[in-house]
């Protein structure tokens, strides 16, 4: 144990960090002891990641000071952070795919040469100590997401980190993998490490942490002991006002099959499997949720239906007409709207440097008669959307990349809905949104459902999927593991399927 137990592992005093006019952190005070797990809770954009990046030397605070073991330190680069015993595990892994676990773990460490066999020994011993499962010789590209995360953790432990920071570590894990990760974290805590876990999932906070610090708009609005709080209180602190955490699931009557996917297989450009023998039906007036660990074939499914990816075999029947082989243009004209939101929100659905008016044009400009584009209708549409969805923007002529995540999402979804689609495909529509905006999006989807639109909803939060969807389809490695009624299933059941357990008779969707 450390010599001075009275000292905090980390103490932040008056940290302020601004980016241009945006204040990311304002006068933040925070402390954590060794042998403690602190959850840093806050909505997207509340400054969690910025704060942790200051600790790990990626950013430097404008004001304020950092104390480690009671001494003031100046962390000007990531290397210094490591020397001080701070290790950060990023949301997006930073591993060399073609290297083995072992090579990744030692990569960048200096000063000592260790024989491979001895190194392997050392790594295995360390794994045992913390209850990690590592295969030192396995190449990263052969690893599952959870294995990659383990390597990331090993990496910082190998560098002697006593203070671990994990940025949204569970976003890519199944419920079972999450439970495993939490067990590891508890073990580290028992061994005297200080752990900070960044998250916006309330139930995880309650499950793992000792204390919770809640950030809102860059400020710490409260620090509570986990044992003395409830989900509702945390949500209120996080959002700043009472919130309802209920999602509606309106009942609809006329359910006809609109889209029927038959034996669909897709191969990615690099030859890897995208989808394999996928069968399902999408009905009007229903929300079909799609669950799965990131990269289980969600993107391929969306893009194939939209005509952006080629199918290897199989058919996609839209009202009995096979749409495979049709161009995106033809598919759009059939009334299949896709508000596909890839990793970065602006990547595909919107053009970041263009304003709302020009973005409204994206799917409708071809309907313009003549050579010159008449922007009046899309200006009108943009104004209507701002009004109807209460989009916060300096003006409809502001480039959309300058809007906040929630507003960008509203612009995108608003445009798609405005085209009165029959099928709406939406992937991660609430990714990065605050609670309030998320609920507006759910309401929008439910409204469409009531209008008998068939909705395919690719989600990541299982709680949301369970509450919002009528049925849930689970994907794993591009295969359908099963389609279940959302009302009669559990998170555990879905979790098992996400990890690759096939449900009985999964291929028949009747």
């Amino acid at each position, binding site marked *: 144990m450390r010599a001075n137990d009275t000292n905090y592992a980390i103490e932040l005093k008056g940290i302020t960090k601004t980016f241009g006019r945006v204040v990311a952190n304002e006068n933040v005070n925070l402390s954590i002891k060794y042998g403690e797990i602190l959850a840093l809770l806050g909505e997207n954009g509340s400054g969690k990641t910025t704060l942790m990046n200051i600790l790990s030397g990626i950013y430097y605070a404008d004001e304020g000071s950092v104390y480690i073991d009671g001494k003031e330190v*100046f962390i000007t680069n990531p290397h210094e952070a490591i020397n001080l015993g701070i290790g950060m595990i990023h949301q997006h892994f930073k591993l060399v795919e073609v290297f083995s676990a072992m090579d990744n773990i030692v990569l960048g460490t200096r000063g000592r040469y260790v024989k491979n066999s001895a190194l392997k020994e050392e790594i295995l011993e360390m794994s045992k100590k913390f209850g990690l499962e590592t295969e030192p010789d396995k190449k990263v590209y052969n690893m599952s997401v959870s294995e990659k995360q383990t390597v990331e953790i090993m990496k910082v432990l190998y560098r002697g980190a006593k203070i671990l920071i994990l940025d949204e570590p569970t976003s890519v894990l199944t419920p079972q993998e999450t439970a495993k990760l939490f067990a590891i974290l508890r073990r580290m805590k028992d061994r005297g490490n200080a752990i900070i876990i960044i998250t916006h999932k309330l139930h995880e906070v309650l499950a793992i942490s000792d204390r919770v610090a809640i950030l809102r708009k860059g400020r710490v609005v409260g620090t509570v002991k986990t044992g003395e709080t409830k989900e509702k209180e945390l949500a209120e602190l996080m959002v700043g006002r009472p919130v309802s955490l209920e999602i509606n699931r309106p009942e609809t009557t006329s359910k006809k099959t609109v889209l029927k996917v038959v034996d669909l297989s897709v191969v990615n450009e690099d030859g890897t499997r995208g989808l394999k023998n996928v069968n399902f039906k999408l009905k009007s007036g229903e929300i079909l949720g799609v669950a799965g660990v990131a990269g289980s074939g969600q993107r391929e499914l969306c893009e194939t239906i939209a005509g952006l990816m080629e199918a290897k075999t199989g058919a996609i029947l839209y009202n009995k007409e096979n749409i495979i082989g049709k161009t995106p243009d033809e598919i759009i004209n059939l009334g299949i709207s896709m508000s596909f939101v890839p990793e970065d929100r602006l990547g595909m659905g919107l053009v970041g440097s263009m304003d709302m008016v020009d973005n409204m044009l994206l799917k409708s400009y071809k309907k313009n008669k003549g050579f010159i584009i008449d922007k009046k209708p899309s200006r009108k549409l943009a104004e209507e959307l701002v009004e109807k969805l209460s989009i916060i923007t300096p003006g409809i002529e502001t480039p959309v990349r300058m809007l906040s995540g929630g507003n960008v999402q509203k612009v995108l979804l608003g445009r798609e809905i405005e085209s009165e689609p029959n099928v709406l495909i939406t992937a991660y529509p609430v990714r990065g949104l605050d609670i309030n905006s998320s609920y507006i999006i759910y309401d929008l989807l439910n409204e469409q459902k009531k209008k008998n639109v068939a909705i395919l909803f690719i989600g990541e939060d299982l709680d949301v999927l369970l509450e919002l969807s009528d049925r849930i389809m689970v994907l794993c490695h591009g295969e359908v593991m099963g389609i279940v009624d959302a009302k009669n299933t559990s998170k555990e059941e879905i979790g098992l399927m996400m990890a690759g357990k096939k449900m009985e008779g999964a291929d028949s969707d009747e």
Partner: protein
Amino acid sequence: MNKKGHVPFIRIVKISERSGKDTLKIRIAAFISALAAGGLFILFLGYNPIELYGTIISGAFRSKMAFQATIRFMIPLLMSSLGVAMAFKMRFWNIGAEGQIIVGAVCASYFALFHDTWPHFLLLLVMFAAGALGGGLWGLIPAYFKSKYDTNETLFTLMLNYIALHIITYLRDGPWKDPGSSGFPKIARFAPNAQLDKILGVHFGWIIALILVFIVFIYLRYTKHGYEISVVGESKSTAKYAGMDVRKIILRTMAISGGICGITGMIQAAGSDMTLASSVAGGVGFTAIIVSWLAYLNPFGILLVSFLFSVLEKGSSVMQSAYGLSTYFASVLQGIILFFILGCEFFIRYKFVVSRKGGR
């Protein structure tokens, strides 16, 4: 154990978004700094900078003739800058304007040399079309390979420049060699019938160039095609998602981009050189890249920047005769201006922050 680190004295901080006014101020400041730095350079050479700058300005404007010469410099620069700007807007790095100018000139010259008995305006019209077609085709080649095999257009267009240049050399030394040149390899002078008419003392290319400014402006900003170019430039996947035929858009835009450069070649040959010289492009295609970027791909900005560049070019040639300075002086000055203008982008996006001591 923890050695006390030091607080960085100056840090670089990203700025979210500067207002348009601030941006303009920074750019003007950069331009003035560039002139100042150029002045230092002149001082270093042992001349009076103010005097020299004065000579450049007066050299470009001092007489009707001088001004006409400035405009003659400007025409090909303006047109080819408009051409490459179209491709750049699509993020297609067309650095092959040079070659497209040459091929346009070659195609037009065929009619000028071998069909010079045709009616004057018909001949010019055909030459115009041939120039556009030749340049367009030369632009289509890299676009085809880019859209089909995803080849690197930068290298591809660059290499095509040299091929084009050698085509002229081949024609000059072989099939198109002027029989009346007594052994000296050159291509015959165009008959007056195949030369551009003069309006206000300068061949009417300047009118075409001005019209092009408006056409390109409208095309990029108000038409479906222009919209498609912007979307493809921003993100090909977005374009596909919106149902655009990206391949077709790339081919079409490059044909137009090359076509405009090809017209430049025709005008340069028939308006200025009156023959097909291997210097028909003479580096204009490369300067055009600088011009269009300095103007942020805005056609009216291109009009302004290409005018300023022409003043510099013409003024420098006067400086050569007055002070015996090399005309390369203009290139040095261009380089300095470019350095400052592009460098100031850094200050538009970032600022320096001096740490307050203690930082509490």
